[in-house]
Protein backbone atom coordinates (compact mmCIF):
# COMPACT_ATOMS: atom_id res chain seq x y z
CA UNK A 1 0.00 0.00 0.00
CA UNK A 2 1.38 3.39 -1.03
CA UNK A 3 0.63 6.94 -0.06
CA UNK A 4 0.58 10.01 -2.30
CA UNK A 5 0.15 13.51 -0.99
CA UNK A 6 -2.38 15.90 -2.54
CA UNK A 7 0.41 17.97 -4.02
CA UNK A 8 2.14 14.95 -5.52
CA UNK A 9 -1.19 13.64 -6.81
CA UNK A 10 -1.48 16.81 -8.92
CA UNK A 11 1.96 16.15 -10.38
CA UNK A 12 1.03 12.50 -10.92
CA UNK A 13 -2.09 13.39 -12.92
CA UNK A 14 -0.17 16.04 -14.85
CA UNK A 15 2.54 13.57 -15.75
CA UNK A 16 0.02 10.92 -16.83
CA UNK A 17 -1.82 13.41 -19.01
CA UNK A 18 1.16 13.56 -21.36
CA UNK A 19 0.40 10.05 -22.48
CA UNK A 20 -3.18 9.37 -21.45
CA UNK A 21 -6.59 10.81 -21.88
CA UNK A 22 -7.95 11.12 -18.36
CA UNK A 23 -11.55 11.04 -17.18
CA UNK A 24 -12.83 11.62 -13.66
CA UNK A 25 -16.10 12.15 -11.76
CA UNK A 26 -16.87 15.87 -11.70
CA UNK A 27 -19.36 17.08 -9.12
CA UNK A 28 -22.49 18.71 -10.56
CA UNK A 29 -24.35 19.17 -7.29
CA UNK A 30 -24.85 17.37 -3.98
CA UNK A 31 -26.63 14.43 -5.63
CA UNK A 32 -24.89 14.18 -9.00
CA UNK A 33 -21.49 13.44 -10.43
CA UNK A 34 -20.75 13.15 -14.12
CA UNK A 35 -17.79 11.91 -16.12
CA UNK A 36 -15.57 14.73 -17.28
CA UNK A 37 -12.41 14.88 -19.30
CA UNK A 38 -9.51 16.15 -17.29
CA UNK A 39 -7.79 19.25 -18.58
CA UNK A 40 -4.66 20.94 -17.43
CA UNK A 41 -4.65 22.06 -13.81
CA UNK A 42 -8.28 21.17 -13.19
CA UNK A 43 -8.81 19.85 -9.71
CA UNK A 44 -9.28 16.11 -9.80
CA UNK A 45 -11.23 15.17 -6.70
CA UNK A 46 -12.01 11.55 -5.89
CA UNK A 47 -14.49 12.35 -3.13
CA UNK A 48 -18.13 11.38 -3.53
CA UNK A 49 -20.07 8.49 -5.03
CA UNK A 50 -21.01 6.94 -8.37
CA UNK A 51 -21.55 9.06 -11.48
CA UNK A 52 -24.88 9.44 -13.29
CA UNK A 53 -23.72 7.21 -16.16
CA UNK A 54 -21.83 3.99 -15.55
CA UNK A 55 -18.21 3.67 -16.64
CA UNK A 56 -19.05 0.88 -19.11
CA UNK A 57 -19.37 3.28 -22.02
CA UNK A 58 -15.63 3.96 -21.89
CA UNK A 59 -15.20 0.32 -22.90
CA UNK A 60 -17.77 0.17 -25.69
CA UNK A 61 -20.16 2.68 -27.15
CA UNK A 62 -23.90 2.94 -27.46
CA UNK A 63 -23.49 3.19 -31.21
CA UNK A 64 -20.32 1.89 -32.67
CA UNK A 65 -18.96 1.27 -36.12
CA UNK A 66 -17.12 -2.03 -35.81
CA UNK A 67 -13.86 -1.18 -37.54
CA UNK A 68 -10.33 -0.73 -36.29
CA UNK A 69 -9.99 2.67 -34.71
CA UNK A 70 -7.01 4.53 -33.37
CA UNK A 71 -7.50 4.55 -29.62
CA UNK A 72 -6.04 7.12 -27.33
CA UNK A 73 -4.70 5.49 -24.21
CA UNK A 74 -7.15 6.19 -21.44
CA UNK A 75 -7.28 6.27 -17.68
CA UNK A 76 -10.55 6.45 -15.79
CA UNK A 77 -10.18 7.83 -12.30
CA UNK A 78 -12.82 7.41 -9.66
CA UNK A 79 -14.84 4.39 -10.77
CA UNK A 80 -16.68 3.18 -7.71
CA UNK A 81 -16.92 -0.40 -6.52
CA UNK A 82 -20.27 -0.83 -8.28
CA UNK A 83 -18.85 0.14 -11.67
CA UNK A 84 -15.81 -2.07 -11.21
CA UNK A 85 -18.02 -5.06 -10.35
CA UNK A 86 -20.26 -4.33 -13.33
CA UNK A 87 -17.21 -4.32 -15.57
CA UNK A 88 -16.16 -7.71 -14.21
CA UNK A 89 -19.37 -9.19 -15.63
CA UNK A 90 -19.03 -7.31 -18.91
CA UNK A 91 -15.45 -8.54 -19.29
CA UNK A 92 -16.62 -12.10 -18.73
CA UNK A 93 -19.18 -11.77 -21.49
CA UNK A 94 -17.25 -9.70 -24.02
CA UNK A 95 -13.83 -11.26 -23.54
CA UNK A 96 -14.84 -14.90 -23.42
CA UNK A 97 -13.71 -16.70 -26.60
CA UNK A 98 -14.32 -15.67 -29.28
CA UNK A 99 -13.27 -12.30 -27.91
CA UNK A 100 -15.02 -9.14 -28.91
CA UNK A 101 -12.13 -7.16 -30.42
CA UNK A 102 -13.96 -3.87 -29.98
CA UNK A 103 -14.41 -4.09 -26.23
CA UNK A 104 -11.52 -2.06 -24.87
CA UNK A 105 -9.06 -3.85 -22.64
CA UNK A 106 -6.48 -1.08 -22.68
CA UNK A 107 -8.42 1.39 -20.53
CA UNK A 108 -6.81 1.73 -17.11
CA UNK A 109 -9.13 1.49 -14.14
CA UNK A 110 -8.16 3.76 -11.26
CA UNK A 111 -11.03 3.16 -8.89
CA UNK A 112 -11.80 5.13 -5.74
CA UNK A 113 -13.61 4.35 -2.50
CA UNK A 114 -16.97 6.03 -2.05
CA UNK A 115 -16.70 8.75 0.56
CA UNK A 116 -20.42 9.47 0.59
CA UNK A 117 -23.43 7.90 -1.06
CA UNK A 118 -26.31 8.71 -3.36
CA UNK A 119 -29.78 8.38 -1.87
CA UNK A 120 -30.50 5.41 -4.19
CA UNK A 121 -27.28 3.47 -3.52
CA UNK A 122 -27.78 -0.01 -2.04
CA UNK A 123 -24.62 -2.04 -2.64
CA UNK A 124 -24.44 -3.11 0.99
CA UNK A 125 -27.98 -4.52 0.73
CA UNK A 126 -26.55 -6.98 -1.82
CA UNK A 127 -23.68 -7.77 0.53
CA UNK A 128 -21.25 -5.70 -1.55
CA UNK A 129 -18.89 -2.95 -0.44
CA UNK A 130 -18.80 0.74 -1.35
CA UNK A 131 -15.27 0.24 -2.65
CA UNK A 132 -13.58 -2.12 -5.08
CA UNK A 133 -11.79 -5.17 -3.76
CA UNK A 134 -10.48 -6.36 -7.13
CA UNK A 135 -10.83 -5.62 -10.81
CA UNK A 136 -8.86 -2.35 -10.75
CA UNK A 137 -5.39 -1.36 -11.87
CA UNK A 138 -5.01 1.08 -9.00
CA UNK A 139 -7.44 1.93 -6.22
CA UNK A 140 -7.44 5.27 -4.44
CA UNK A 141 -8.74 5.87 -0.92
CA UNK A 142 -9.11 9.50 0.15
CA UNK A 143 -7.34 10.82 3.23
CA UNK A 144 -7.22 14.40 4.49
CA UNK A 145 -3.62 14.78 3.35
CA UNK A 146 -3.73 12.69 0.18
CA UNK A 147 -4.57 9.17 -0.97
CA UNK A 148 -3.73 5.60 -0.12
CA UNK A 149 -3.06 3.67 -3.30
CA UNK A 150 -3.45 -0.04 -3.79
CA UNK A 151 -2.07 -1.93 -6.77
CA UNK A 152 -4.50 -4.29 -8.46
CA UNK A 153 -2.67 -5.33 -11.61
CA UNK A 154 0.72 -5.52 -13.27
CA UNK A 155 -0.07 -2.44 -15.31
CA UNK A 156 -1.00 -0.54 -12.17
CA UNK A 157 2.21 -1.63 -10.53
CA UNK A 158 4.25 -0.48 -13.52
CA UNK A 159 2.68 2.95 -13.47
CA UNK A 160 3.40 3.31 -9.78
CA UNK A 161 6.92 2.14 -10.40
CA UNK A 162 7.57 4.70 -13.08
CA UNK A 163 6.37 7.52 -10.81
CA UNK A 164 7.81 6.08 -7.62
CA UNK A 165 9.32 9.38 -6.46
CA UNK A 166 5.78 10.71 -5.92
CA UNK A 167 4.77 7.86 -3.60
CA UNK A 168 5.93 6.56 -0.28
CA UNK A 169 4.93 3.59 1.84
CA UNK A 170 1.65 4.08 3.68
CA UNK A 171 1.86 4.22 7.47
CA UNK A 172 -0.14 1.94 9.75
CA UNK A 173 -2.00 5.00 10.96
CA UNK A 174 -3.04 5.88 7.41
CA UNK A 175 -4.18 2.32 6.74
CA UNK A 176 -6.22 2.40 9.91
CA UNK A 177 -7.78 5.72 8.89
CA UNK A 178 -8.92 4.15 5.61
CA UNK A 179 -10.34 1.09 7.31
CA UNK A 180 -12.32 3.39 9.61
CA UNK A 181 -13.56 5.48 6.71
CA UNK A 182 -14.68 2.40 4.85
CA UNK A 183 -16.56 1.10 7.87
CA UNK A 184 -18.23 4.48 8.31
CA UNK A 185 -19.55 4.67 4.76
CA UNK A 186 -20.68 1.06 4.91
CA UNK A 187 -22.57 1.80 8.11
CA UNK A 188 -24.18 4.83 6.49
CA UNK A 189 -25.41 2.70 3.60
CA UNK A 190 -26.58 -0.14 5.80
CA UNK A 191 -28.55 2.26 7.97
CA UNK A 192 -30.37 3.51 4.91
CA UNK A 193 -31.60 -0.04 4.23
CA UNK A 194 -32.48 -0.54 7.86
CA UNK A 195 -29.59 -2.99 8.12
CA UNK A 196 -31.32 -5.36 5.70
CA UNK A 197 -29.04 -7.59 3.62
CA UNK A 198 -30.36 -9.81 0.86
CA UNK A 199 -29.54 -13.50 0.92
CA UNK A 200 -28.89 -13.88 -2.80
CA UNK A 201 -29.32 -17.65 -2.89
CA UNK A 202 -32.64 -17.36 -1.11
CA UNK A 203 -33.66 -14.43 -3.31
CA UNK A 204 -32.95 -16.54 -6.39
CA UNK A 205 -35.33 -19.20 -5.18
CA UNK A 206 -38.00 -16.72 -4.23
CA UNK A 207 -38.03 -14.50 -7.32
CA UNK A 208 -39.92 -16.87 -9.60
CA UNK A 209 -42.33 -17.79 -6.84
CA UNK A 210 -43.21 -14.17 -6.13
CA UNK A 211 -44.63 -13.18 -9.48
CA UNK A 212 -47.25 -11.03 -7.81
CA UNK A 213 -44.53 -8.71 -6.52
CA UNK A 214 -42.87 -8.50 -9.93
CA UNK A 215 -46.27 -7.62 -11.33
CA UNK A 216 -46.98 -5.05 -8.65
CA UNK A 217 -43.75 -3.19 -9.44
CA UNK A 218 -43.56 -4.02 -13.15
CA UNK A 219 -46.93 -2.51 -13.99
CA UNK A 220 -45.41 0.97 -13.64
CA UNK A 221 -42.72 0.22 -16.23
CA UNK A 222 -43.02 2.18 -19.46
CA UNK A 223 -40.35 0.15 -21.34
CA UNK A 224 -38.18 3.22 -21.81
CA UNK A 225 -34.90 1.29 -21.34
CA UNK A 226 -33.36 3.86 -18.99
CA UNK A 227 -32.66 1.14 -16.43
CA UNK A 228 -30.72 -1.05 -18.83
CA UNK A 229 -28.86 1.81 -20.49
CA UNK A 230 -27.71 3.16 -17.17
CA UNK A 231 -26.95 -0.21 -15.55
CA UNK A 232 -23.26 -1.08 -15.14
CA UNK A 233 -24.13 -4.78 -15.50
CA UNK A 234 -26.33 -4.63 -18.62
CA UNK A 235 -24.46 -5.55 -21.79
CA UNK A 236 -27.00 -6.26 -24.54
CA UNK A 237 -26.60 -4.89 -28.02
CA UNK A 238 -27.92 -5.33 -31.53
CA UNK A 239 -25.60 -6.03 -34.41
CA UNK A 240 -26.63 -4.44 -37.70
CA UNK A 241 -25.35 -4.14 -41.22
CA UNK A 242 -23.66 -0.82 -41.91
CA UNK A 243 -22.38 0.65 -45.15
CA UNK A 244 -18.96 -0.97 -44.92
CA UNK A 245 -19.07 -3.08 -41.79
CA UNK A 246 -21.23 -4.06 -38.87
CA UNK A 247 -22.64 -1.46 -36.50
CA UNK A 248 -23.44 -2.19 -32.89
CA UNK A 249 -26.23 -0.42 -31.06
CA UNK A 250 -26.89 -0.69 -27.34
CA UNK A 251 -30.16 -2.58 -26.95
CA UNK A 252 -32.55 -3.35 -24.15
CA UNK A 253 -34.52 -6.41 -23.10
CA UNK A 254 -37.21 -3.96 -22.01
CA UNK A 255 -38.10 -3.16 -25.62
CA UNK A 256 -41.04 -5.07 -27.03
CA UNK A 257 -39.20 -6.18 -30.16
CA UNK A 258 -36.10 -7.37 -28.37
CA UNK A 259 -36.85 -11.10 -28.33
CA UNK A 260 -39.12 -11.21 -31.38
CA UNK A 261 -38.12 -13.74 -34.03
CA UNK A 262 -38.83 -13.92 -37.74
CA UNK A 263 -42.51 -14.57 -38.32
CA UNK A 264 -43.49 -12.63 -35.23
CA UNK A 265 -43.25 -15.13 -32.36
CA UNK A 266 -42.16 -13.31 -29.21
CA UNK A 267 -41.76 -14.87 -25.77
CA UNK A 268 -41.75 -11.46 -24.11
CA UNK A 269 -44.27 -9.41 -26.01
CA UNK A 270 -45.99 -8.45 -22.75
CA UNK A 271 -44.73 -5.95 -20.21
CA UNK A 272 -44.46 -8.12 -17.10
CA UNK A 273 -42.41 -10.94 -18.68
CA UNK A 274 -40.02 -8.28 -19.98
CA UNK A 275 -39.77 -6.61 -16.60
CA UNK A 276 -39.33 -10.00 -14.90
CA UNK A 277 -36.65 -11.01 -17.41
CA UNK A 278 -34.44 -8.18 -16.24
CA UNK A 279 -34.73 -9.31 -12.65
CA UNK A 280 -34.18 -12.97 -13.56
CA UNK A 281 -31.16 -12.03 -15.67
CA UNK A 282 -29.55 -10.10 -12.81
CA UNK A 283 -30.19 -12.54 -10.01
CA UNK A 284 -30.68 -15.96 -11.63
CA UNK A 285 -29.30 -16.23 -15.17
CA UNK A 286 -26.00 -14.36 -14.84
CA UNK A 287 -25.08 -15.93 -11.50
CA UNK A 288 -25.77 -19.36 -13.03
CA UNK A 289 -24.00 -18.82 -16.34
CA UNK A 290 -21.25 -16.33 -15.52
CA UNK A 291 -20.95 -16.82 -11.77
CA UNK A 292 -21.54 -13.11 -11.17
CA UNK A 293 -24.72 -11.26 -10.40
CA UNK A 294 -25.90 -8.68 -12.88
CA UNK A 295 -26.84 -6.08 -10.25
CA UNK A 296 -24.25 -4.04 -8.41
CA UNK A 297 -26.58 -2.07 -6.14
CA UNK A 298 -25.70 1.29 -7.65
CA UNK A 299 -29.38 2.24 -7.72
CA UNK A 300 -29.05 4.05 -11.04
CA UNK A 301 -32.09 2.17 -12.36
CA UNK A 302 -34.24 3.71 -9.65
CA UNK A 303 -32.70 7.15 -10.14
CA UNK A 304 -33.53 7.07 -13.84
CA UNK A 305 -36.85 5.22 -13.75
CA UNK A 306 -39.79 7.04 -15.35
CA UNK A 307 -42.18 4.86 -13.39
CA UNK A 308 -40.32 5.45 -10.11
CA UNK A 309 -39.87 1.73 -9.61
CA UNK A 310 -37.84 1.18 -6.46
CA UNK A 311 -35.81 -1.92 -7.29
CA UNK A 312 -34.25 -2.19 -3.85
CA UNK A 313 -37.63 -2.07 -2.17
CA UNK A 314 -38.92 -4.71 -4.61
CA UNK A 315 -36.00 -7.07 -3.94
CA UNK A 316 -36.44 -6.72 -0.19
CA UNK A 317 -40.13 -7.41 -0.54
CA UNK A 318 -39.45 -10.55 -2.59
CA UNK A 319 -37.04 -11.75 0.07
CA UNK A 320 -39.44 -11.11 2.95
Amino acid at each position, binding site marked *: MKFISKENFKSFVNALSDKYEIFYPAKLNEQQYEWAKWENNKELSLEGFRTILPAKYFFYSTREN*LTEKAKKETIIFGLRGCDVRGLELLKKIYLEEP*KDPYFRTDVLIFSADCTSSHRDCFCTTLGDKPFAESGFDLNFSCLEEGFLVEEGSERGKEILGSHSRLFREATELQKKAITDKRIKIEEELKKRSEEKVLDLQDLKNKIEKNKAILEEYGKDCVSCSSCTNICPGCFCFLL*CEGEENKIRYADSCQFKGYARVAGGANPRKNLI*PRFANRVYCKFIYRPEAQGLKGCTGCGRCFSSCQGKIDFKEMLLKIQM
Partner: protein
Amino acid sequence: MDPYKGIKAEVLSIINETPTIKTFVLKPEKEFSFSTGQFIQFAVPKVGESPFTPSSSPLEKEKFEVTIMRVGRVTESIHNLRKGDVVEIRGPLGKGYPLNEFEKKEVLILGGGVGLAPLRSLLLTLLYEKHKYNRIVLLYGARTPIDIVYKNEFPEWAKKGAEIYRSVDKGDENWKEKVGVVTTLFEDVKLNPDNGVAVVCGPPIMMKFGTLKLLQIGYKPENIYLSMEKNMSCGIGKCGHCGLGKYFVCKDGPVFKYSQIMNIEGIWE
Protein backbone atom coordinates in the same frame (compact mmCIF):
# COMPACT_ATOMS: atom_id res chain seq x y z
CA MET B 1 -9.70 -12.44 -35.53
CA ASP B 2 -12.84 -10.38 -35.80
CA PRO B 3 -15.89 -12.57 -35.17
CA TYR B 4 -18.14 -9.86 -36.56
CA LYS B 5 -16.51 -10.02 -39.99
CA GLY B 6 -17.79 -12.65 -42.35
CA ILE B 7 -16.50 -14.20 -45.52
CA LYS B 8 -17.96 -13.73 -48.94
CA ALA B 9 -20.07 -16.40 -50.56
CA GLU B 10 -21.44 -16.54 -54.08
CA VAL B 11 -24.95 -17.66 -54.87
CA LEU B 12 -24.40 -20.59 -57.24
CA SER B 13 -28.03 -21.48 -57.75
CA ILE B 14 -31.47 -21.05 -56.26
CA ILE B 15 -34.06 -23.78 -55.91
CA ASN B 16 -37.71 -22.85 -55.50
CA GLU B 17 -39.05 -25.20 -52.84
CA THR B 18 -42.49 -23.69 -52.23
CA PRO B 19 -44.09 -20.33 -53.05
CA THR B 20 -42.42 -18.85 -49.94
CA ILE B 21 -39.33 -21.03 -49.46
CA LYS B 22 -36.15 -21.14 -51.50
CA THR B 23 -32.92 -23.08 -51.13
CA PHE B 24 -29.76 -21.13 -51.88
CA VAL B 25 -26.63 -22.97 -52.93
CA LEU B 26 -23.64 -20.96 -51.75
CA LYS B 27 -19.97 -21.18 -52.58
CA PRO B 28 -17.82 -19.62 -49.86
CA GLU B 29 -14.72 -17.73 -51.02
CA LYS B 30 -12.56 -19.84 -48.75
CA GLU B 31 -12.74 -23.14 -46.96
CA PHE B 32 -15.76 -23.34 -44.75
CA SER B 33 -16.76 -26.37 -42.76
CA PHE B 34 -19.47 -26.94 -40.20
CA SER B 35 -20.97 -29.69 -38.10
CA THR B 36 -24.55 -30.62 -38.82
CA GLY B 37 -26.87 -28.49 -36.67
CA GLN B 38 -24.49 -25.56 -36.33
CA PHE B 39 -25.79 -22.31 -37.78
CA ILE B 40 -24.47 -19.39 -39.77
CA GLN B 41 -25.26 -15.69 -39.94
CA PHE B 42 -26.30 -14.86 -43.49
CA ALA B 43 -25.92 -11.20 -44.42
CA VAL B 44 -27.13 -9.32 -47.43
CA PRO B 45 -24.60 -6.50 -47.35
CA LYS B 46 -26.06 -3.17 -46.23
CA VAL B 47 -29.48 -4.73 -45.69
CA GLY B 48 -29.34 -7.11 -42.75
CA GLU B 49 -28.20 -10.34 -41.27
CA SER B 50 -30.20 -13.35 -40.08
CA PRO B 51 -29.33 -16.75 -38.62
CA PHE B 52 -29.94 -20.00 -40.54
CA THR B 53 -28.80 -23.56 -40.17
CA PRO B 54 -27.32 -25.06 -43.34
CA SER B 55 -29.62 -27.67 -44.84
CA SER B 56 -26.96 -29.59 -46.76
CA SER B 57 -24.58 -32.30 -45.66
CA PRO B 58 -21.43 -31.03 -43.95
CA LEU B 59 -19.54 -33.64 -45.95
CA GLU B 60 -19.88 -31.45 -49.01
CA LYS B 61 -16.89 -29.13 -48.80
CA GLU B 62 -17.08 -26.84 -51.83
CA LYS B 63 -20.54 -25.49 -51.30
CA PHE B 64 -23.42 -25.58 -48.88
CA GLU B 65 -27.11 -24.86 -48.89
CA VAL B 66 -29.50 -22.84 -46.78
CA THR B 67 -33.26 -23.10 -47.06
CA ILE B 68 -35.04 -19.88 -46.26
CA MET B 69 -38.66 -18.91 -45.87
CA ARG B 70 -39.69 -15.37 -46.75
CA VAL B 71 -41.13 -13.91 -43.57
CA GLY B 72 -39.59 -10.47 -43.03
CA ARG B 73 -37.34 -7.72 -44.28
CA VAL B 74 -34.06 -9.63 -44.44
CA THR B 75 -35.53 -12.84 -45.88
CA GLU B 76 -37.36 -10.73 -48.45
CA SER B 77 -34.05 -9.33 -49.64
CA ILE B 78 -32.51 -12.81 -49.58
CA HIS B 79 -35.35 -14.05 -51.78
CA ASN B 80 -34.56 -11.26 -54.22
CA LEU B 81 -31.00 -12.51 -54.67
CA ARG B 82 -29.99 -13.88 -58.05
CA LYS B 83 -27.45 -16.37 -59.22
CA GLY B 84 -24.00 -14.78 -59.06
CA ASP B 85 -24.84 -12.35 -56.26
CA VAL B 86 -22.39 -12.21 -53.38
CA VAL B 87 -23.46 -12.36 -49.75
CA GLU B 88 -21.57 -12.53 -46.48
CA ILE B 89 -21.61 -15.39 -44.04
CA ARG B 90 -20.30 -15.71 -40.49
CA GLY B 91 -19.80 -18.99 -38.77
CA PRO B 92 -20.18 -21.81 -38.19
CA LEU B 93 -21.76 -20.82 -34.89
CA GLY B 94 -23.07 -22.73 -31.91
CA LYS B 95 -23.07 -26.41 -31.21
CA GLY B 96 -24.44 -28.94 -33.65
CA TYR B 97 -26.22 -32.23 -33.14
CA PRO B 98 -24.29 -34.52 -30.79
CA LEU B 99 -24.06 -37.41 -33.25
CA ASN B 100 -22.09 -39.61 -30.86
CA GLU B 101 -25.10 -39.62 -28.53
CA PHE B 102 -27.23 -41.01 -31.37
CA GLU B 103 -25.02 -44.00 -32.12
CA LYS B 104 -26.53 -47.47 -31.69
CA LYS B 105 -29.91 -45.85 -31.18
CA GLU B 106 -33.12 -45.45 -33.10
CA VAL B 107 -33.11 -41.87 -34.37
CA LEU B 108 -36.50 -40.27 -34.85
CA ILE B 109 -36.50 -37.03 -36.79
CA LEU B 110 -39.61 -34.94 -36.35
CA GLY B 111 -39.93 -31.96 -38.62
CA GLY B 112 -42.51 -29.36 -39.53
CA GLY B 113 -42.55 -27.00 -42.50
CA VAL B 114 -39.28 -25.24 -43.21
CA GLY B 115 -38.01 -26.78 -39.95
CA LEU B 116 -36.94 -29.69 -42.10
CA ALA B 117 -33.96 -27.58 -43.24
CA PRO B 118 -31.52 -28.39 -40.41
CA LEU B 119 -33.01 -31.87 -40.15
CA ARG B 120 -32.20 -32.54 -43.80
CA SER B 121 -28.57 -31.79 -43.03
CA LEU B 122 -28.78 -34.18 -40.09
CA LEU B 123 -30.57 -36.84 -42.10
CA LEU B 124 -27.96 -36.74 -44.87
CA THR B 125 -25.22 -37.00 -42.28
CA LEU B 126 -26.87 -39.96 -40.56
CA LEU B 127 -27.57 -41.76 -43.83
CA TYR B 128 -23.92 -41.45 -44.87
CA GLU B 129 -22.96 -43.62 -41.90
CA LYS B 130 -26.21 -45.44 -41.53
CA HIS B 131 -24.61 -48.52 -39.96
CA LYS B 132 -23.89 -46.51 -36.82
CA TYR B 133 -27.58 -46.08 -36.03
CA ASN B 134 -30.18 -48.74 -35.33
CA ARG B 135 -32.91 -47.11 -37.37
CA ILE B 136 -33.62 -43.73 -38.93
CA VAL B 137 -37.23 -42.58 -38.99
CA LEU B 138 -38.45 -39.29 -40.43
CA LEU B 139 -41.85 -37.87 -39.55
CA TYR B 140 -42.58 -34.74 -41.54
CA GLY B 141 -45.58 -32.49 -41.62
CA ALA B 142 -46.44 -29.51 -43.80
CA ARG B 143 -49.53 -27.38 -44.18
CA THR B 144 -50.41 -28.51 -47.71
CA PRO B 145 -48.64 -30.64 -50.36
CA ILE B 146 -47.39 -27.41 -51.99
CA ASP B 147 -45.66 -26.43 -48.74
CA ILE B 148 -43.48 -29.54 -48.62
CA VAL B 149 -39.79 -28.73 -49.02
CA TYR B 150 -37.26 -30.94 -50.85
CA LYS B 151 -40.19 -32.56 -52.70
CA ASN B 152 -38.02 -34.66 -54.98
CA GLU B 153 -35.58 -35.90 -52.41
CA PHE B 154 -37.79 -38.13 -50.26
CA PRO B 155 -37.54 -41.20 -52.54
CA GLU B 156 -33.77 -40.99 -52.48
CA TRP B 157 -33.69 -40.73 -48.67
CA ALA B 158 -36.00 -43.75 -48.48
CA LYS B 159 -33.74 -45.67 -50.85
CA LYS B 160 -30.78 -44.90 -48.62
CA GLY B 161 -32.59 -46.36 -45.66
CA ALA B 162 -34.74 -43.72 -43.98
CA GLU B 163 -38.28 -44.73 -43.02
CA ILE B 164 -40.44 -41.80 -44.00
CA TYR B 165 -43.93 -40.83 -42.90
CA ARG B 166 -45.51 -37.61 -44.08
CA SER B 167 -48.64 -35.67 -43.34
CA VAL B 168 -50.26 -32.46 -44.46
CA ASP B 169 -52.79 -30.43 -42.52
CA LYS B 170 -54.87 -30.06 -45.65
CA GLY B 171 -54.55 -32.41 -48.59
CA ASP B 172 -55.47 -32.09 -52.26
CA GLU B 173 -56.76 -34.55 -54.87
CA ASN B 174 -53.29 -35.99 -55.53
CA TRP B 175 -52.29 -36.43 -51.89
CA LYS B 176 -52.32 -40.13 -50.95
CA GLU B 177 -50.52 -39.88 -47.63
CA LYS B 178 -51.71 -38.85 -44.18
CA VAL B 179 -53.90 -35.82 -43.60
CA GLY B 180 -53.62 -34.25 -40.14
CA VAL B 181 -51.08 -32.48 -37.95
CA VAL B 182 -47.66 -34.11 -37.81
CA THR B 183 -48.30 -35.76 -34.44
CA THR B 184 -51.01 -37.94 -36.03
CA LEU B 185 -48.17 -39.80 -37.78
CA PHE B 186 -47.30 -41.39 -34.45
CA GLU B 187 -50.36 -43.61 -34.97
CA ASP B 188 -48.69 -45.22 -37.97
CA VAL B 189 -45.23 -45.99 -36.68
CA LYS B 190 -43.97 -48.25 -33.95
CA LEU B 191 -41.14 -46.57 -32.11
CA ASN B 192 -38.71 -47.64 -29.44
CA PRO B 193 -38.41 -44.74 -26.98
CA ASP B 194 -36.34 -46.83 -24.57
CA ASN B 195 -33.44 -47.00 -26.97
CA GLY B 196 -34.21 -44.03 -29.12
CA VAL B 197 -33.58 -40.33 -29.46
CA ALA B 198 -35.90 -37.82 -31.07
CA VAL B 199 -34.78 -34.67 -32.87
CA VAL B 200 -37.38 -31.97 -33.37
CA CYS B 201 -37.44 -28.82 -35.47
CA GLY B 202 -40.36 -26.80 -36.72
CA PRO B 203 -42.65 -23.92 -35.89
CA PRO B 204 -43.06 -23.26 -32.13
CA ILE B 205 -46.53 -24.77 -31.88
CA MET B 206 -45.40 -27.95 -33.62
CA MET B 207 -42.29 -28.16 -31.41
CA LYS B 208 -44.51 -27.90 -28.36
CA PHE B 209 -47.06 -30.54 -29.32
CA GLY B 210 -44.40 -32.73 -30.89
CA THR B 211 -42.42 -32.74 -27.66
CA LEU B 212 -45.50 -33.38 -25.53
CA LYS B 213 -46.38 -36.34 -27.75
CA LEU B 214 -42.86 -37.74 -27.49
CA LEU B 215 -43.00 -37.49 -23.71
CA GLN B 216 -46.39 -39.14 -23.73
CA ILE B 217 -45.18 -42.15 -25.68
CA GLY B 218 -42.21 -42.62 -23.39
CA TYR B 219 -39.25 -40.56 -24.60
CA LYS B 220 -37.21 -39.22 -21.71
CA PRO B 221 -36.59 -35.44 -21.64
CA GLU B 222 -32.84 -36.05 -22.02
CA ASN B 223 -33.42 -38.00 -25.24
CA ILE B 224 -35.38 -35.26 -26.97
CA TYR B 225 -33.25 -32.78 -28.93
CA LEU B 226 -34.78 -29.46 -29.91
CA SER B 227 -33.49 -26.87 -32.36
CA MET B 228 -34.46 -23.65 -30.65
CA GLU B 229 -35.27 -20.65 -32.75
CA LYS B 230 -34.26 -17.35 -31.18
CA ASN B 231 -33.18 -14.08 -32.73
CA MET B 232 -29.44 -14.56 -32.60
CA SER B 233 -27.78 -11.25 -33.42
CA CYS B 234 -24.07 -11.43 -32.57
CA GLY B 235 -24.02 -15.24 -32.76
CA ILE B 236 -21.20 -15.54 -30.21
CA GLY B 237 -22.86 -15.18 -26.83
CA LYS B 238 -22.44 -11.48 -26.19
CA CYS B 239 -25.42 -9.46 -27.36
CA GLY B 240 -28.00 -11.17 -25.17
CA HIS B 241 -30.77 -11.37 -27.76
CA CYS B 242 -31.13 -15.12 -27.87
CA GLY B 243 -31.25 -15.51 -24.08
CA LEU B 244 -33.17 -18.60 -23.03
CA GLY B 245 -33.01 -18.70 -19.26
CA LYS B 246 -29.36 -18.80 -18.35
CA TYR B 247 -28.39 -19.95 -21.85
CA PHE B 248 -27.49 -18.02 -24.92
CA VAL B 249 -28.98 -20.10 -27.73
CA CYS B 250 -26.25 -19.04 -30.15
CA LYS B 251 -23.43 -20.29 -27.95
CA ASP B 252 -24.99 -23.01 -25.80
CA GLY B 253 -27.34 -24.23 -28.56
CA PRO B 254 -29.07 -23.94 -30.95
CA VAL B 255 -29.64 -27.65 -30.22
CA PHE B 256 -30.79 -28.33 -26.65
CA LYS B 257 -31.91 -31.41 -24.86
CA TYR B 258 -35.45 -30.88 -23.62
CA SER B 259 -34.20 -31.71 -20.12
CA GLN B 260 -31.93 -28.64 -20.23
CA ILE B 261 -34.70 -26.17 -20.91
CA MET B 262 -37.94 -27.79 -19.72
CA ASN B 263 -38.18 -25.56 -16.65
CA ILE B 264 -37.65 -22.29 -18.47
CA GLU B 265 -40.73 -20.13 -18.99
CA GLY B 266 -42.00 -19.40 -22.47
CA ILE B 267 -39.77 -21.78 -24.43
CA TRP B 268 -42.52 -22.50 -26.95
CA GLU B 269 -43.36 -18.87 -27.65
